[in-house]
């Protein structure tokens, strides 16, 4: 736990790979995977004499990102060189943007325990990704694969407005959701297409000045970002309490030990000697261009959430959960068109579907079934054809093989027993076998009823209509 006389201040620099077909400055494919160096050409391999040409989609996607995060779009923009040496960067400079980023001064809204909070965005700029270094386990050296070199990125820089690891996670999840909604990135953190540099500092509560910050680069899982922030904040507080000072430096987060380590950067490592990129011309955007992009923006999570609460009666929690992922939200909308029962669909997504995905260690975008199946499933529950216990089993089946739920229950023989005489038989049998429960119930132990219903469910392998069972047991017990 963070001591409550201290405040944690977090800023995030989020890198997001854009889902354009080609790289930012050449016509090579951006497709993930692929044999090493097969998505390369003289431009992205930095052969002398080659010239970059900017991909028009990169500008469009970055403007889209800016508009969706309430930024001002810079009508006169340009590219700059950021100079540093590393073998994954074949030109020894990265083409980025320095003093004229495409977007400035936006914000996103996150939900916190104290209500909604706006997190300000300082800037969004475009730049190119670096290649990948493969370290050889036999010590034969390092192998350079430039397939990712030149893949377009946007970097979203937040103001230091975040005050806890929880807020940092909520902010990152919100950005991810927005970028998924506007379809500019697949935001696959496990593939590195969404990753963050995390800046952390601490200060005594009430202090106006920011403390010295440390930076953890290239974090690509929510869980590790939260752990790293909590660890680092506590470490800094302890240092300060022990009378030490915090050094501004880059740290490496180690997943396994759950600690940060100094990278022992050279003092001047941060001196990138930016200058205007002479190989590219200025980017000038007209109002008309910007407005045309604004018109293509789809409904964003904020608006969907409001609609789900107001029109469909979803709770704050359910509306938040469903809209936090575009996949969930699309699944929800498609399903309710079929079953017209938003509450049940919302609950199934929030509890069962999320749980099964979690068990399978999968993300919402890996769902194979659609609203067609989920919508029918809810219709079957509503009509009393299956119980909600059976519905959960059908869901599990849907994860294994996509089939219409009506087909699944028919094949598995899971249709709910709603036939009065059949249910009566079961009730009588259960009562006969459990005289103690009858005595308990009569002695005022209401729990005994639940036990009896449970036994009847077991007897029918979950197929009996629970409302009918309940009623019939009560009738018999109160006779």
């Amino acid at each position: 736990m963070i001591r409550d006389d201290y405040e944690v201040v977090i800023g995030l620099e989020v890198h997001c790979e854009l889902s354009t077909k080609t790289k930012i400055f050449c016509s090579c494919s951006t497709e993930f995977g692929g044999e090493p160096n097969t998505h390369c050409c003289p431009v992205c391999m930095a052969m002398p004499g080659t010239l970059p040409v900017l991909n028009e989609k990169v500008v469009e996607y970055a403007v889209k990102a800016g508009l969706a995060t309430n930024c001002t779009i810079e009508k006169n923009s340009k590219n700059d060189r950021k100079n540093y040496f590393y073998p994954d960067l074949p030109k020894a400079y990265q083409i980025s943007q320095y003093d004229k980023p495409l977007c400035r001064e936006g914000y996103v809204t996150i939900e916190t325990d104290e209500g909604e909070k706006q997190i300000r965005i300082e800037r969004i700029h475009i730049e190119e990704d670096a290649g990948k270094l493969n370290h050889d386990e036999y010590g034969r050296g390092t192998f350079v694969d430039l397939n990712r070199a030149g893949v377009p990125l946007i970097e979203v820089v937040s103001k230091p407005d975040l005050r806890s690891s929880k807020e940092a996670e909520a902010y990152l999840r919100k950005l991810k959701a927005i970028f998924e909604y506007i379809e500019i990135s697949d935001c696959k953190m496990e593939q590195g297409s969404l990753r963050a540099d995390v800046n952390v500092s601490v200060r005594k509560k009430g202090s106006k000045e920011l403390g010295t910050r440390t930076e953890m680069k290239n974090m690509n899982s929510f869980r590790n970002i939260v752990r790293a922030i909590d660890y680092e904040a506590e470490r800094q507080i302890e240092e300060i309490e022990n009378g030490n000072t915090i050094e501004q430096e880059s740290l490496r987060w180690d997943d396994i030990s759950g600690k940060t380590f100094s990278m022992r950067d050279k003092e001047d490592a941060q001196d990138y000697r930016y200058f205007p990129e002479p190989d590219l011309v200025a980017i000038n955007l007209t109002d008309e261009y910007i407005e045309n992009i604004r018109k293509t923006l789809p409904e964003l999570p904020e608006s969907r959430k409001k609609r789900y609460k107001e029109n469909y009666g979803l709770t704050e929690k359910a509306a938040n959960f469903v809209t936090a992922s575009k996949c969930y939200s699309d699944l929800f909308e498609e399903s309710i068109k079929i079953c017209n029962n938003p509450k049940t669909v919302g609950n199934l997504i929030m509890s069962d579907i999320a749980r099964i995905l979690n068990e399978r260690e999968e993300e919402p975008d890996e769902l194979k079934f659609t609203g067609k199946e989920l919508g029918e499933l809810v219709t079957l529950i509503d009509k009393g054809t299956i119980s909600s216990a059976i519905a959960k089993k059908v869901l599990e089946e849907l994860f294994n093989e996509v089939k219409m739920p009506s087909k699944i229950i028919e094949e598995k023989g899971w249709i709910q027993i709603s036939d009065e005489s059949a249910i009566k038989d079961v009730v009588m049998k259960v009562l006969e076998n459990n005289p103690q429960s009858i005595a308990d119930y009569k002695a005022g132990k209401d729990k005994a009823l639940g036990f009896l219903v449970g036994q009847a469910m077991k007897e029918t392998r979950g197929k009996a209509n629970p409302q009918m069972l309940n009623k019939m047991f009560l009738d018999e017990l109160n006779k």
Partner: protein
Amino acid sequence: MAISKDEIIHIANLACLNLSEEEIERYTLDMQEILEFANTINNVNTEGMSETIAANNKSNVLRKDEVKTFENIEMLLKNAPSQDEGMFRIPKVINN
């Protein structure tokens, strides 16, 4: 325009260059001359002129987002002193 020896050492470090004492002295003088030459442009009167952000007045030279596969990767790899398994081989990079 004065440039200090320390600054030369710093720039050399950024460029990953190892300079001898003699070279540092020489480059300090060279760099001073270059800066003085470039300084001429600082004396141009720019009052009333609008800011330019590029060396020419062209803008928006853009490319369509269409894949073109470059076929001759072998030739590009050959430029490096060492390759293996379709990749450039370089001395081991120590990744802290």
